[in-house]
């Protein structure tokens, strides 16, 4: 393959134009990394320096202990995956209805979804907690159980999931299903056999969004979960910082970096699907 000269020139211009933004974006990650590998006694040296005297990888092991990272990781995965599944499961039929049927109340439903996004979780936590404490579960209530968090996350992500999927669904030609009916396939069967397989990309992209939102959420999970064995990553890491007499920054940064890594890799891998999915999802 020969390098395309105009493309090469264009690449250079593009990279130069992007570089200020890229630098600002990379900056906090560099801060995280270099603080995370500093020996503890070098975090507060003056004058401060970027480069540590030696790379102390043991910080990550210390952090794993301090943040109870293993358990928290497992909890984050459970909560994020389950809430994603639940949100997608209830949103698919709704998105299908919006994409396929004209019906009364459609506008109302869309507006309702927008309103659900207008209440910041921080405003709702008190009520959510009360709600959770009213619902009996096991020998207590839904406080301190993952289920409460999962259901709340799913509910908060419905709006976005429905928007994205419904606009994608609208682009799937109707005739495909209709020709399946002519071949004697039942309506519901046609949806499963013909429609849903075509809608998989949209579902995957929507799922990633929901997953990331759940992975990064703090206010709700912090309020609803109280015992160590149920806490998620965001809670454990914030616990390392908030209101302490001393903050061990190297551990905090190591933990943040480690919690970010899985999501970043997910992004790198799925970046092209993401753009495509949103393209179709944004405006019908």
């Amino acid at each position, binding site marked *: 393959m020969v390098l395309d000269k105009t493309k090469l020139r264009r690449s250079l211009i593009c990279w130069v134009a992007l570089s200020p933004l890229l630098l600002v974006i990379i900056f906090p990650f560099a801060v995280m990394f270099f603080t995370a590998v500093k020996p503890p006694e070098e975090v507060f040296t003056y004058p401060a320096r970027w480069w540590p005297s030696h790379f102390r990888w043991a910080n990550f092991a210390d952090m794993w202990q301090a943040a109870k990272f293993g358990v928290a990781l497992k909890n984050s995965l459970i909560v994020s995956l389950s809430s994603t599944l639940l949100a997608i499961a209830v949103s698919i039929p709704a998105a299908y209805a919006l994409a396929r049927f004209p019906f009364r109340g459609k506008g109302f439903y869309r507006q309702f979804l927008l309103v659900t996004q207008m209440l910041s979780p921080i405003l709702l936590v008190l009520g959510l907690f009360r709600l959770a404490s009213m619902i009996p579960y096991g020998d207590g209530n839904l406080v301190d159980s993952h289920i409460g968090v999962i259901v709340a996350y799913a509910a908060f992500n419905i709006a976005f999931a429905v928007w994205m999927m419904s606009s994608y669904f609208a682009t799937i030609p109707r005739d495909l299903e209709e020709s399946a009916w002519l071949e004697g396939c039942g309506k519901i069967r046609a949806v499963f056999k013909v429609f849903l397989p075509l809608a998989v990309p949209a579902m995957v992209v929507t799922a990633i969004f929901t997953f990331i939102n759940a992975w990064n959420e703090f206010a709700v999970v912090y309020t609803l979960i109280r015992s160590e064995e149920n806490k998620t990553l*965001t809670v454990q890491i914030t616990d390392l910082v908030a209101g302490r007499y001393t903050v061990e920054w190297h551990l905090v940064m190591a933990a943040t970096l480690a919690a970010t890594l899985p999501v970043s890799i997910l992004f790198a891998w799925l970046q092209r699907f993401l*753009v495509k999915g949103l393209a179709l999802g944004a405006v019908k």
Partner: protein
Amino acid sequence: MTQSASSRPMMPWLLIMPSFALALFIISYPFFNIVFQSVHDVSRFGMIRDFNGLTNFLKVMADPVFMDVLRRTLIWTVSVVGGTVLVSVPVALILHQDFYGRGIARTVVMLPWSVSLTMTAIVWRWAFNDEYGMVNVTLQKLGIISGPIHWLATAEWAFPVEIMVGILVSVPFTVTIFLGGLSSVPGDIYEAARIDGATPWQMFRKLTLPLLRPFINMAIVLNVIYVFNSFPIIWVMTQGGPSNSTHILVTYLYELGFRLGRPGEAAAISLVMLSMLMIFTGLYIRMQPKESGEA
């Protein structure tokens, strides 16, 4: 079998029901709770005392700090959303070009999205530390400043810094939306325009921008909602201080409700915020041509 969907009006509602019920179930009680608290005297630890009508609202309105905070919230929202759109449009245009390493560039631009807001704010707070923060270290090394700048000590520095971080975390989502919009633009209309002798600027003004309009509108509506309600950046970096000079409504109500022990007044502010957002989106959607409003 050939029955058309519209003649079976129940069907769409059946399909919508699960999501509607779930969202309503989760939202309605907390919402009711806010309304209830806003018209009651509520103790520091959440005990409901007496019904007090609009006292909470009146108290909030009479507070000079509230008006100040309200004004600042508008500045915050306009600056962050405006800045985000201004940064995102050119970035999306560039990332839409075909160039070497585009995949990497796109991934990097999306990176801030992968970190939770709270943690981003924590990292920036640390980076802006006067003595040990890497921002001052780097600027001093580069010879741009001679001594450390006290970034978070005064609102004059702290608030712009917070707006910058706010823009930075909103860019990935917005760029992604715009990229999606751009990829739905058919390439041949540019070809035709170029043959007609249009300059790049003309093409942007006359072709790209109108095509992007619905996407920009959607980005504005969603970003306004998210930024207006955005809590962690300001709370983590300055807690609204020094001397209330960086508070926005959501941090102010948090302080009122959970620090100063006045949950009733905090609930009243929540309702004021909600109605502001509803009025904004209502007006904005009305002002737009029909198809873009449904985002």
